């Protein structure tokens, strides 16, 4: 590579043509104390809360504690270079990040510095990280569905656009997988996605980006990553940055989905900062405003009224529990803020029920209103069937001595559990889900061995798409399944089962 000096000089000249010399009036302060990602600065009398501060050497910080004589700030970069007595400048700007078209398809830090290899992020708009959530008048109830593409969720705990649905569970049981599948499932919808990685391994973030890329989901997705090695301040601002990017879409009448993975690490980063800034500790050593930390973030997800453009921001926060203890401080906080939770259970996961959604503990408080009539019809009996199955499950080991009715309940339950199992990265459209659940709840699988359902279900869907496109068309167009429609669907499923018996060799 060679640098052409003439061209370089010409380019510099052009860039500096716009530079205009003005008398610069600045407010400065001096570093009194620095260490562990925080700094105490003397001076800066006029500083605003949350204002960006420029430390000599290019490190930025956010003013956090405004005290009588000093300002406590959280550093957004390494603190090694900063020394006592260094000059600190006000920037006059509240902490902000880039928003708009340019950030989608990118992997970046909360301050919009690129983490991928595609050069600087050329966004022409910025937006403050902390903004007040829209008021009551500006909102409307959740009314449109946001499909996750996962049968167990779309059928039992449907999510609406503008909803906040918590994904909660122990480590390593597929919390992130649900979020990723949901992003992948938005490829045919108009929902933009933002995935906020808080305190994760860089390799993990890299892997997620690769998976999204592979499934064609990266172009409408922005990954905001504050990794485990980043300063706590960056972890703290990451979800607000993601939220701001989504809010920009919402304000412009579009739809966005933001995933916070995960808020327990966020709470820990905030605890670290608070303790270092000597704010008094409370329960589990978290500061007193830890509830507000999450509520002000999640309140910003909403469905705007038609007058405001009807845009929406859906939030899927993730919280990790320790040993299934969802009554710990942070989980209970976030459960009470959100409009429902998807509870994942390790036992189910290890039994092979994946996604390991515990149907009894998972709820969606507002999503029902957004669930299409069709899905409600076919999944109506699902919950009761499964509840009855759980009740009788203990008797399964005496299978031979059971009466007919119990055997039936158990058989149906087992098959429903099978129907709700789903492979990763394979989200289904709402019509595909309707067919799959219809076959289960109407008892069409009752004479099939449960362990064959996993293999037969995709075949059934394919069969109906191929041989009965009229059924698919009606399902896509109508909102309700009428008697005649149900009959046609039943016939189609029976025809598929008939074709299985006709050519058994295919299944071997």
């Amino acid at each position, binding site marked *: 590579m060679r*640098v052409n000096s003439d061209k370089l000089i*010409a380019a510099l000249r052009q860039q500096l043509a716009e530079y205009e010399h003005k*008398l610069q009036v600045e407010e400065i302060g001096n570093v009194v104390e620095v260490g562990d990602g925080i700094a105490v600065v003397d001076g800066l009398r006029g500083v605003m809360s949350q204002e960006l501060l420029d430390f000599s050497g290019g490190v930025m910080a956010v003013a956090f504690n405004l005290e009588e004589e000093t300002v406590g700030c959280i550093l957004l970069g390494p603190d090694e270079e900063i020394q006592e007595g260094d000059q600190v400048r006000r920037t006059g700007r509240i902490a902000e990040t880039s928003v708009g078209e340019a950030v989608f398809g990118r992997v970046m830090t909360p301050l919009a510095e690129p983490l991928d290899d595609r050069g600087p992020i050329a966004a022409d708009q910025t937006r403050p990280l902390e903004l007040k959530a829209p008021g009551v008048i500006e909102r409307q109830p959740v009314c449109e569905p946001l499909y996750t593409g996962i049968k167990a969720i779309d059928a039992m705990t449907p999510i609406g656009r503008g909803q906040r649905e918590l994904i909660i569970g122990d480590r390593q049981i597929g919390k992130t997988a649900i979020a990723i599948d949901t992003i992948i499932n938005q490829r045919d919808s108009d929902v933009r996605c933002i995935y906020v990685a808080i305190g994760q391994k860089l390799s993990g973030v890299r892997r997620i980006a690769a998976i999204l890329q592979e499934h064609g989901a990266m172009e409408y997705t922005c990954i905001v990553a504050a990794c485990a090695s980043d300063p706590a301040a960056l972890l703290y601002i990451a979800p607000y940055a993601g939220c701001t990017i989504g809010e920009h879409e919402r304000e412009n009448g579009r739809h966005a989905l933001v995933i916070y993975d995960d808020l327990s690490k966020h709470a820990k980063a905030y605890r670290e900062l608070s303790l270092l800034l000597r704010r008094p500790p409370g329960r589990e050593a978290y500061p007193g405003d830890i509830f507000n930390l999450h509520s002000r973030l999640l309140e910003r997800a909403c469905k705007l009224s038609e007058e405001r453009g009807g845009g929406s921001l859906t939030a899927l926060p993730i919280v990790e529990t320790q040993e299934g203890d969802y009554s710990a401080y942070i989980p209970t906080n976030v459960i009470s803020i959100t409009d429902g939770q998807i509870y994942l259970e390790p036992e189910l996961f290890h039994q092979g029920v994946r996604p390991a959604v515990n149907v009894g503990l998972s709820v969606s408080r507002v999503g029902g209103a957004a669930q299409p009539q069709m899905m409600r019809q076919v999944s109506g009996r699902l919950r009761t069937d499964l509840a009855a199955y759980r009740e009788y499950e203990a008797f399964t080991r005496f299978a031979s001595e059971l009466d007919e009715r119990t055997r039936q309940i158990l058989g149906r339950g087992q098959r429903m559990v099978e129907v709700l199992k789903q492979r990763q990265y394979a989200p289904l459209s709402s019509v595909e889900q309707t067919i799959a659940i219809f076959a289960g709840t109407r008892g069409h699988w009752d004479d099939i061995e449960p362990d064959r359902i996993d293999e037969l279900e995709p075949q059934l869907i394919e069969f109906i798409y191929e041989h009965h496109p009229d059924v698919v068309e009606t399902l896509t167009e109508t909102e309700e399944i009428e008697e005649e429609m149900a009959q046609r669907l039943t016939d189609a499923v029976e025809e598929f089962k008939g074709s299985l018996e006709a050519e058994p060799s295919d299944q071997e």
Partner: protein
Amino acid sequence: MGSIREARQYVKRLLEIAEQGGDVEAVGRELRELREVMESSAVVSQQVEYERQGIKQAVVETTVPLTGEQQQRLSAAIQKLLGGPVAIQQQTNPEIIGGLRITVDDVVIDNSLRGQLARMLQVVHQAPAPAEAVEEDE
């Protein structure tokens, strides 16, 4: 102990220690000593005097010493700007390369060559890299 500000920080820390159940007598001794040091320093006692009278102090940095007339004009201009009596403390600082820099409390009015260069650098940093200036070698 160069300035009142530093002294104030120091006293504040001492009082914090006393509050946390430190030796009050020792803290008192320390404060008395501090006072002696401060009073013996001409610069500090001057500062204390200014603060008492409500006179603001402006530090003017230049590369060459100002002449008496320049100083008077500058002092009049700054007084007009701040709307009150101002005591000017002149310093020569070759680091600013040229021009002058005035510091009043937390406010810096930077008209130095160094400051201008720094701001130019910022403009260049923010602009997109000139891709046409770099040629790929075979």
